[in-house]
């Protein structure tokens, strides 16, 4: 056990073993203890001044007991033994019979990687060092777009110290950084208002904040603002949609990603429940969920139930290759967990969640794909999405894009929702580009609890989706 973490949470090995024994005493088959100490800081700019600072500490421990597919869970915001014992006793109640299993006396550290080494630690990264970045972002947006009237910007950084221990005698410790810069601006022209924003987020140390990163954000926000004055809501209806490389990865996240999460599959509610091993789309399509990308917002050295971070190929050359498993679903399907057991914090039990979900490259250039569309939409900038797991209907919101007419980009468009059916949309991807881009915006997935994720995509052509618009 790493001494510094044990001391941070004020527990000893023998106390952890005692807690596991209490958790297992009603006949539980497996138990784990998840300690977390998160410090999150924020610094905000509005009306050309840094007008708000914040810092938030979240500390506690979650204790989980599994019996078959059933889970008992409780947490405590103190790590005093009486409170932790109370939590362990509550979690134990999920099991009411069965043999009490003993845990191994020897402890074993779970071997993991380091996908987010910090060159410049966050604990000593003070407000004085963050201020210039916000001021630069503010100044550059105003310089780049004269119609800008207001800028709002925030730097968020957090550091989570995790210590995990389970009834197999396994443990790990992990330090998870997350740094985000979020900017938005209001633009005014002839009495018309438009608002645009952009963000960048990384699991990395303070070194990730740099002048070039801020310049990239400022240019993106200013360009989006200018674009919106030209754009209109288009005529809607069913049509081909070319998804630009990058944030269109939300298509995967919503259209198929959630339906590949094995808790939905185990309950039989996913539309893909019966399709493992089947060809579900064109052979040019390979879809991955990956915890191993360096400094990526979705990366994890270990998931939240002690499985090392790994790359999971969900769809390989069009064939449904794997679901995303936590320990419960992996046991149910007699397969290995895939490291997708994640939780928002110690307050939540882990469930299968995505990490960085992306499609691998195909063979076409972006220009070739656009040239193949007679009339459709080229969607470039996306925000929130949603899916109905069972029916497969998904939607995502397109903040900006272009109309495609006779293979050429023409009028700019904005503010349209696109809706489709996951399996059908996947089957209707007819061209995959060779320009895969991982989008490093502040994507956050909600599934009763929030987790940072990311997504990526090459340019793709979906032959038919319903595009929102005017009639």
């Amino acid at each position, binding site marked *: 056990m790493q001494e510094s973490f044990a001391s941070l949470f004020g527990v000893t090995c023998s106390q952890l073993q005692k807690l596991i024994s209490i958790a297992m005493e009603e006949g539980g088959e497996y138990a784990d203890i998840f300690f977390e100490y998160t410090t999150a800081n924020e610094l905000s700019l509005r009306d050309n001044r840094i007008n*708000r600072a914040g810092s938030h500490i979240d500390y506690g421990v979650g204790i989980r007991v599994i019996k078959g597919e059933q889970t008992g869970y409780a947490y405590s915001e103190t790590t005093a033994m009486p409170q932790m014992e109370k939590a362990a006793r509550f979690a134990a109640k999920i099991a009411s019979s069965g043999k009490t299993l003993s845990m191994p006396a020897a402890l074993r550290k779970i071997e993991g990687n380091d996908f987010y080494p910090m060159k410049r630690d966050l604990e000593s990264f003070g407000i004085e060092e963050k201020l210039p970045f916000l001021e630069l972002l503010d100044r550059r947006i105003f310089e780049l777009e004269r119609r800008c009237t207001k800028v709002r910007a925030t730097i968020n950084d957090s550091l989570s110290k995790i210590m995990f221990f389970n009834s197999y005698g396994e443990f790990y410790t992990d330090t998870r950084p997350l740094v985000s810069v979020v900017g938005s601006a209001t633009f005014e022209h002839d009495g018309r208002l438009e608002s645009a924003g952009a963000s960048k987020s990384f699991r990395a140390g303070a070194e990730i904040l740099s002048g070039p990163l801020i310049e990239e954000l400022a240019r993106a926000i200013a360009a989006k603002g200018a674009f919106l004055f030209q754009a209109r809501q288009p005529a809607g209806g*069913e049509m081909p949609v070319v998804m630009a490389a990058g944030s269109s990865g939300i298509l995967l996240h919503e259209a198929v990603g959630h339906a590949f999460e094995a808790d939905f599959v185990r309950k039989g509610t996913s539309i893909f429940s019966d399709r493992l091993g089947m060809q579900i789309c064109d052979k040019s399509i390979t879809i991955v969920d990956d915890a191993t990308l360096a400094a990526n917002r979705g990366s994890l050295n270990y998931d939240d139930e002690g499985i090392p971070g790994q790359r999971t190929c969900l769809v390989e050359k069009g064939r449904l290759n794997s679901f995303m498993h936590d320990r419960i679903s992996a046991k149910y399907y007699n397969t290995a967990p895939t490291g997708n057991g994640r939780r928002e914090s110690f307050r939540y039990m882990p469930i299968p969640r995505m990490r960085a979900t992306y499609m691998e490259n195909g063979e076409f250039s972006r220009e070739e794909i656009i040239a193949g569309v007679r009339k459709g939409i080229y969607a470039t900038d996306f925000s929130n999405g949603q899916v109905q797991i069972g*029916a497969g*209907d998904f939607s995502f919101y397109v903040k900006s894009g272009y109309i495609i007419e006779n293979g050429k980009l023409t009028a700019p468009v904005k503010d349209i*929702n696109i809706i489709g059916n996951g399996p059908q949309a996947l089957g209707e991807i007819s061209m995959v580009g060779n320009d895969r881009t991982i989008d490093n915006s502040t994507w956050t997935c909600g599934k009763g609890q929030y987790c940072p994720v990311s997504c990526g995509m090459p340019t793709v052509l979906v032959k038919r989706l319903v595009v*929102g*618009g005017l009639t």
Partner: protein
Amino acid sequence: MIYGTEENRNETECAGFVLKYLEKQGAQARITLNKGCINTICLLNGKTDRLQMSNDRALTIQIYHKNRYGNFSTNRLEKGELEKFAENALRATMLVEEDPARALPEKELYYRGENRDLGQFDSSIFTIPDERKKEIVLEICSSMEGNRYLVSAESEYNDYLDYQYIIDSQGFEAHSLQTDFDVSAQCSVRNGADARYESSWYESAMHFRKLDYKRCGIEALERGIAKFNPAKVMSGKYNMIIENCCASRVVSPVINGLSGSLVQQKNSFLAGSLGKRVFGKNVTFKDRPHRYGMAGSRYFDSEGIATKEMTFIENGIINNYFIDSYYSRKLNMPVTVESPSVPEIVCRNESGNEFRGPRELMREMGNGILVTGFNGGNCNGATGDFSYGIEGFLFSGGTIIHPVREMNITGNVVSLWNNLAAVGKDPLKWAKWQIPSLAFENINFNGK
């Protein structure tokens, strides 16, 4: 117990301790203690799937020092830790730039206390046996089981106890205590094809004896089966009825648009609209924060400012924005309230008729699409342009024809609310936002 115990006294003392420490350093502050306790039982296909116990507490520290502001929180309430945390928080606040608008509210705006109880607390939360809670979830789950279309059935029971204590440097001190009991049913149903249709239903009450859970499972099941065999519908302009359970989706852009923060940042399509008629003459929104036994009712907001009944849109005219003390100074407008407590829509039906719910509204409108849920989408707050995915049913001659699939509605919030045709009288009794079913004319639907 999270209230009235020795532990609770220690926690409120912690709040006072931090306040005194900060005042000694020359700062002003507002300290808020939030505590919550949740018990959850979840059944999957008749078997216990999840038992969960949650106890939360956190101290939020808002510091005002020479027109500088910081917002901090911690759940480590040991005094040694707190002093260190408060010291660091003050140091961070002093690095922020001066903003003349940053200060505690004017004292005369504070809630003065002694109003009658709002009927939001049920002490039976401490005595309901676990067996009774299990009986409820089992009954809900059982009511779905045995149906030939059922793939899976889940039921969940939660009870909540929330306590809040606020103290600040100008002598404001108040607390509130609320209970909530809720149940939900969720099911997945299938009729042969690949698609499995999910559906859920939810009931809630602030008093256990008022929890109306009996039809929860049946409602979820019936709503799921009603989704079988959906068909795409042609794009075009249709009448639209939005069912009460999801009607808040088209109200929230209006409420957001009235936010003082967005108005000041020129990030609202309602900026500059005060006193102007923006929506149809039949559109009136009120906030009634003192309604007895309602989930959102409150006598004071998070700044301690007394809430009051307010009409924020009257006959389509924008009467008030939601202005807290900070944006009051920024905008040079009087304080109203930071956000609505129990907003309700009080709309006149032009025909003079009254309609109970969707069924009567469909009869009135004749043809159109009944929206029973939303599937994603968004609204651009600066322009009011929106585009939402929907689920629901095509209706004709006042009766449902078939479920629709893969459809969007697209338009602008201003034109939408100028097309309000009629409203029902069926806001969900437990909902914080009292929004009935709504009927609109001439809405852009995108389908095949």
